[in-house]
């Protein structure tokens, strides 16, 4: 009797395991009008996600495009152009969740090979200006952390990791004394 129970249990268990992952839905999210590749998918808020990818521009350049969707596959936004700068395709680009409905997307800018990032909300509306990190490099790899986002990359002397403040921007900022406008940050 015990053996029969064990056999039945095994059969039931294997049956359950066999259906461990089941397709719910599958849909195209790009506009089917060009060469799109290298998608990333990151959470924006509960049950909502951002998918972004490279649109080939030729001559080793790409633009980053993306759109929002729900975990049931429902499309939330139209296709948006992200970053606002042409990226160098022979590198990686990526992004990460910042929590609270925001994400950061970044990669290597084509014009100067500098790593740039920009913050977006769940509707893929930019929430900050483009941030130029001051570092040139490739293999940009992002990961969220409790206080922001980590960025690892490779440059001419090796690989590095650093925390990134994705809300830093290129706007002129007044010094605390307010006597004169001081550009605290400008892209090289």
């Amino acid at each position, binding site marked *: 009797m015990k053996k029969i129970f064990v056999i039945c249990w095994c059969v039931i268990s294997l049956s359950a395991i066999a259906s461990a992952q089941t397709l719910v839905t599958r849909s195209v999210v790009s506009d089917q009008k060009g060469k799109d590749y290298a998608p990333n998918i990151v*959470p924006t808020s509960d049950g909502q996600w951002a998918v972004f990818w490279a649109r080939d521009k030729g001559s080793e350049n790409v633009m980053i495009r993306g759109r929002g969707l729900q*975990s049931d596959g429902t499309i939330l936004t139209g296709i948006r152009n992200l970053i606002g700068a042409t990226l160098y395709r022979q590198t990686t680009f990526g992004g990460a969740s910042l929590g609270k409905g925001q994400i950061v997307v970044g990669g290597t800018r084509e014009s100067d090979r500098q790593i740039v990032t920009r913050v977006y909300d769940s509707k893929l509306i930019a929430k900050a200006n483009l941030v130029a990190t001051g570092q040139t490099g490739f293999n*940009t*790899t*992002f990961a969220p952390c409790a206080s922001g986002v980590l960025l690892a990359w490779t440059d001419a002397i090796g690989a590095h990791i650093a925390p990134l403040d994705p809300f830093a921007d290129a706007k002129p900022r007044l010094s605390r004394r307010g006597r004169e406008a001081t550009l605290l940050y400008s892209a090289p």
Partner: protein
Amino acid sequence: MGLSGLRVNPEQAPAFMLGGRGVDSTGRFTSSPLELPTASKAHFLQPTRIAATPNGYLVVGLETYADYSLRRTSGNLVTTDLSKASKAIIYESSFSEHAFAADAAWEGKTGYTLFGRRVNDSKTSGYFRKINAAGKPAAAAKKFPPNKAPNTCNYRIIPLTGTGWFATTWYDYSQELMYLQILSSKGTFMGSPVPISENAYRILDDVVDMAWDAASQRILVAYAEYAAAPSTPEDIWVAIFSLE
């Protein structure tokens, strides 16, 4: 690549203080971000993934010669305050002309890394390897994918947070399909591999990303494929799988 997608749940990730190492008052990096050492000065690391472990952030990637001629899978564990990086952790000792981007993930009390290399035009060697919280190998490497398909690449793994399991994917050159399969914390693959895409048109290299929605128990897979063979415009798709 990019790598990215939901590798770390922000609410569960180890905390560190922004404004510490690596960020100056303008929000730019300082001139001295933390360097990730390799086993030799003649090599450098191409990061492919940052995975959170209980002991810090594990950066895995390809350790390559300066001329990119040979590569192998290695990584570094970085402390949660980003003050120190470990020496290079070697997951596969031999260098190869064609090594694939490495991946790693941690869930519950267990971590795994996936990696592989091309042996010849019709054979690859893929592996998964259990790691400890320090990012170091905790067991011998085992063959990956579990169905032992001989011509695969582009291995990916993410934690299915809250389940103790992982989702893995790989691309099968022979079938021209990307597959998804669940890996348990004990290193057992469950069920049969499930094709991610509908068409047998080639899925582009290194282009699959995955994410896990714990609330709905769903796995989201983003991938690119040709609309029709051969080489018409390449489209982005999202496939959603439920975990039952």
